[in-house]
């Protein structure tokens, strides 16, 4: 036969005949031996000498990997990156991780089993197995048992193969020519598939972008928003006065928030900062300043913060001479009581935090107006 062949098929009438032929055909060593039968035949794997499937090992490895991944992920989240104590359990309590480890193990293992079988071992996707276009395929799906000698190299001799199958008792033989185009994955197919996926992603992404741009309030599920809870600045039928937000109970003060600097700003001028000037106090002051003041007053206190443009009033430039000359007490008073467009910070800051941020404002002022001695101190 001139053209290259894919395989030669030998048709047998009974499973017994097929099983008997297998050792004979294998002994001829003409090519790879494969069987096609309408149903599973016991013992055929051993007869064909099929290797044990590597799938089990893959599943085990991936399962263990899943367990380790889930453990590592949870441990890193809850004990390393953002240690958090919930329900009185220590950060990184392994007991709580087990259910998720279990799920991820199963997930990794089943996906490996399913996808590994389909794509790695069965080499999907392909466009149709050559045997499907053979004449014998009808018999294979009904009552015939077929043994195929598949070409492994150029040197495959289809006439010898046909003879060997006949000698082993095949009632019919059929030579299958190699398909003109590989039915299996080619780079061209892969490229086109990837291209298709890419186009689909771009289209879906653009659609999503414009959908959310034009219909920003379209929320498919609003369960999180529509909770029976109290919302800030919203009415609520829960309290008698109909307000969601409530004032503190009359005559009470939260711990650490005793009212101070209740007089005028001038009266507060004589207040003395009770905190020692230690690195901890400055660290606290810096934290409070960055969290609470920087948006308006800017990182260096010059009155240009990220909010300044959007905010109607102009925040004070704390580097101005007027404020360099301010006593600590007057800054403190402004923080506690607010001033004109600046809101009071008393509800958010404890006594210690208020004084610490005063120190930090002082530090900012000194840093912007550094003198030669300051440099010496700083470099010493």
């Amino acid at each position, binding site marked *: 036969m001139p053209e290259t062949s894919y395989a030669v098929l030998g048709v047998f009438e009974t499973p017994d005949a097929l099983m008997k032929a297998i050792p004979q055909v294998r002994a001829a060593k003409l090519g790879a031996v494969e069987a096609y039968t309408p149903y599973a035949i*016991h013992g055929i794997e051993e007869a064909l000498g099929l290797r044990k499937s590597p799938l*089990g090992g893959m599943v*085990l490895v991936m399962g263990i990997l899943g367990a380790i991944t889930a453990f590592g992920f949870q441990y890193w989240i809850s004990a390393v990156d953002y240690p958090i104590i919930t*329900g*009185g*359990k220590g950060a990184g309590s392994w*007991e*709580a991780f*087990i*259910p998720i480890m279990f799920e991820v193990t199963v997930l990794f293992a089943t996906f490996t089993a399913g996808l590994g079988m389909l794509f790695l071992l069965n080499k999907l996707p392909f466009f149709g197995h050559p045997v499907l276009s053979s004449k014998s395929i009808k018999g294979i799906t009904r009552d015939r048992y077929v043994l195929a000698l598949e070409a492994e190299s150029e040197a495959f001799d289809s006439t010898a193969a046909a003879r060997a199958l006949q000698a082993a008792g095949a009632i019919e033989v059929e030579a299958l020519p190699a398909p003109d185009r590989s039915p299996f994955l080619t780079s061209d197919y892969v490229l086109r598939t990837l291209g298709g996926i890419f186009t689909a992603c771009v289209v879906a992404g653009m659609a999503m972008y414009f959908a959310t741009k034009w219909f920003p309030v379209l929320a498919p599920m609003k369960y999180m928003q529509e909770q029976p809870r109290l919302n800030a600045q919203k009415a609520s039928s829960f309290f008698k006065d109909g307000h969601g937000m409530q004032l503190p109970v009359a005559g009470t003060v939260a711990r650490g928030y005793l009212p101070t600097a209740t007089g005028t700003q001038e009266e507060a001028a004589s207040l003395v900062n009770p905190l020692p000037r230690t690195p901890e106090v400055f660290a606290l002051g810096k934290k409070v300043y960055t969290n609470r003041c920087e948006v308006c007053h800017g990182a260096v206190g010059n009155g240009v913060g990220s909010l300044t443009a959007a905010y109607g009033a102009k925040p004070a430039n704390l580097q101005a001479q007027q404020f360099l000359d301010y006593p600590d007490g007057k800054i403190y008073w402004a923080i506690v009581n607010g001033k004109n467009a600046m809101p009071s910070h008393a509800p958010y800051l404890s006594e210690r935090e208020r004084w610490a941020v005063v120190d930090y404002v002082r530090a900012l002022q000194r840093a912007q107006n550094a003198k030669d001695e300051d440099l010496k101190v700083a470099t010493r």
Partner: protein
Amino acid sequence: MSQDKNASNLPASWLWGAVALGALGVLGSYAAAGPERFWANWVFWFVLLFTLGLGSLFIVALEHLVNAKWSVPIRRIPERLATLLIPSIPVGLIALGAIPVLYPGARPEAAHHPLLAGKAFWLSLPFFSARTIVALALCLLGLWVLVGGSLKQDATKDPAFNFRARKFAPAFMAIFALVVTLVAFDWISGLTPEWYSDIFGVYVFAGAFLSGLAATALAVLHLQDQGRLEGVRGDHLYNLGGFLFAFTVFWSYIGFAQYMLMWYANLPDEVIWYKVRLQGAWHLITLVLAGLHFVLPFFALVTRDSKKDPRRLRRVAYLMLGAHVLDIYWLIFPILGASPRFSWPELSFALFFLGGILLWVRGAMQKGEDMPVGDPFLREGLEFRL
């Protein structure tokens, strides 16, 4: 017939000797080690004997319930093991003597205990005893219908038995669930009646089924060594191994689920049970139990071949029986104190009961046919291929 190839086939005289020696120690332990220790040991062996017998009977009932064919050739083995329920009746009746000693709920003080007062009637000696007797009687009923009927079928070859067993099996499952739960609640968690866990019956069931499976696998392999059970192949062993594998995971799942919920909620009356077991030497035993009952058998049985290979399966079966013994020890013995007790009283009890169990099982293994020869599905079962 018995070509004693296996070294573990001890001569019967040795076993009788062990029983006699053990009996001396058992009696001595009552006098020397005190009633509490004596009864703890007795209850321990009662639970072991009972779970082994009931777990085996469950295997038989399961076959009839799901109409399984593959297990017909080996069904006689769990049937014979299930007859251990017969000696468990006298053992259980004697164990009733433990109730006033070990079970706080049955003492008169319970009526004034804030947590126990409401359950006082349930935990009282008469009702406790009545429940145990009912449970034992129900087991006997199951044994009579399923095992007795099967033995009779050897001679009559009447397929009517299969239909009767298939009808009875669902009812037996309900009975089984009730009996396992009663015994687990009464005899094990009743030792600490303030503590309760809904899933506890399922936990004990998992252990019982495993012990039945392990004993079945061991007995099958033993008889095969003697050239018996011809036709039972790796395919049958594979299914036994598969069951063992699946239920080690099931046991761990239930055991851990019970622990995790209590650990999370951290309620004093619940965690106390675990606190005792997670301190000192008991902590070590808990870890060993997890290793022997889950980690080791899991990895030993995870590959396909290991479930078919008689040598590996035998080792795992021994391991599972040992782990079940440790499991029951871990459930019962912490009531005796923070340090695990194990010395001559425990050894004497082990000699007495192990010797007795082995003698009983050996006797059972010699009687009648090795396979249910009257079962019409025997051929199909022998032809079973994976």
